[in-house]
């Protein structure tokens, strides 16, 4: 996972997908347009075909255990969720609305106090309707020693049908010129 340059992501994710390139070009906007990501001080490190790397620096107001100063597991969860959503979106060839089906997080160990948490997400399989994504969170450079792992599934292209049982209108696709919407929002499927 830590090698974001060489290995090709899972099947049916076009390497020449224009969407991830648009996302990469608008990297700043990806975080800026997501209030919670901005509140956490999240930074987008890189975007590739079906891949996203983002990080959150340690901060005192994000601590979950006041005895130790360890960052809250909820922060790691949000970072992983956000990264998985971006990876799913970066696997598409054109913008579509996405909805998180489920998210599973394993916490292997507490993160080091003061360390920046980095999440590396990969969409390893994209079908016509579902994106399967996995991610790892690290507090250092050791790829064999992750803090947490995530597995997520996203429904893709829910926008067309979402109006059927939803009160609020849903934007099915962002204009290509605009940064794509954050894709972690759950929705009716």
């Amino acid at each position: 996972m830590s090698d974001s340059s060489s290995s090709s992501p899972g099947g049916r994710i076009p390497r020449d997908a224009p969407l991830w390139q648009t996302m990469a070009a608008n990297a700043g906007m990806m975080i800026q347009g997501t209030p919670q990501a901005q509140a956490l001080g999240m930074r987008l490190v890189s975007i590739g075909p079906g891949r996203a790397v983002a990080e959150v620096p340690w901060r005192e107001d994000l601590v979950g255990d006041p005895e130790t100063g360890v960052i809250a597991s909820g922060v790691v969860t949000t970072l992983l969720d956000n990264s998985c959503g971006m990876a799913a979106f970066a696997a598409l060839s054109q913008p579509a609305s996405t909805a998180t089906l489920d998210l599973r997080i394993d916490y292997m160990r507490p993160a080091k106090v003061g360390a920046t948490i980095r999440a590396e997400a990969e969409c390893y399989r994209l079908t016509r309707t579902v994106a399967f994504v996995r991610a790892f969170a690290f507090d250092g450079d050791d790829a064999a020693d992750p803090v947490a792992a995530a597995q997520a599934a996203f429904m893709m292209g829910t926008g067309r049908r979402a109006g059927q049982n939803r009160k609020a209108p849903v934007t099915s696709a962002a204009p290509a010129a605009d940064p794509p919407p954050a894709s972690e929002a759950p929705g009716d499927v």
Partner: protein
Amino acid sequence: MSEPSTAPVRVDASVLRTLFDRVPYARFLGMSFELKGDELTAVLPFKHELIGNPMLPALHGGVVAAMMELTAVAQIFLAQNAQGAPGAPEAPGTLRVPKTIDVSIDYLRSGRPVDTYARAHLTKLGRRIANVRVEAWQYDRADPIATLHGHFLVQGEG
């Protein structure tokens, strides 16, 4: 199967409040807890910073997950501090916060920009592991926006 969350308990709500007032991340989210008898409801008042998708708009899925996780932790803490509970400390509030092992979240509908509530049920509270289910809702308790199922490492005094 034992159901510790429905066992007779007498817990001072201020103990819970004191515990979570000390957790910076709970304040970051703006979360609070209401306790009626042994029934705990977590409240997450809406604020703009909790938005994950401004186009819908919708709460960040991570925020909903984190809120449910903290609800589970609070429920475990309550059960551990229940009067007469096995291993309950003489001075409530001296237990350490349970540590999350894993959580699995189902997203059922998008979180609207309104207040969110959650309640947890301890399926099993063992000596080392707690098995917990949580539901989060907004307008309608019977129509949850997300559910969580998780395992937590229960820690004794230390």
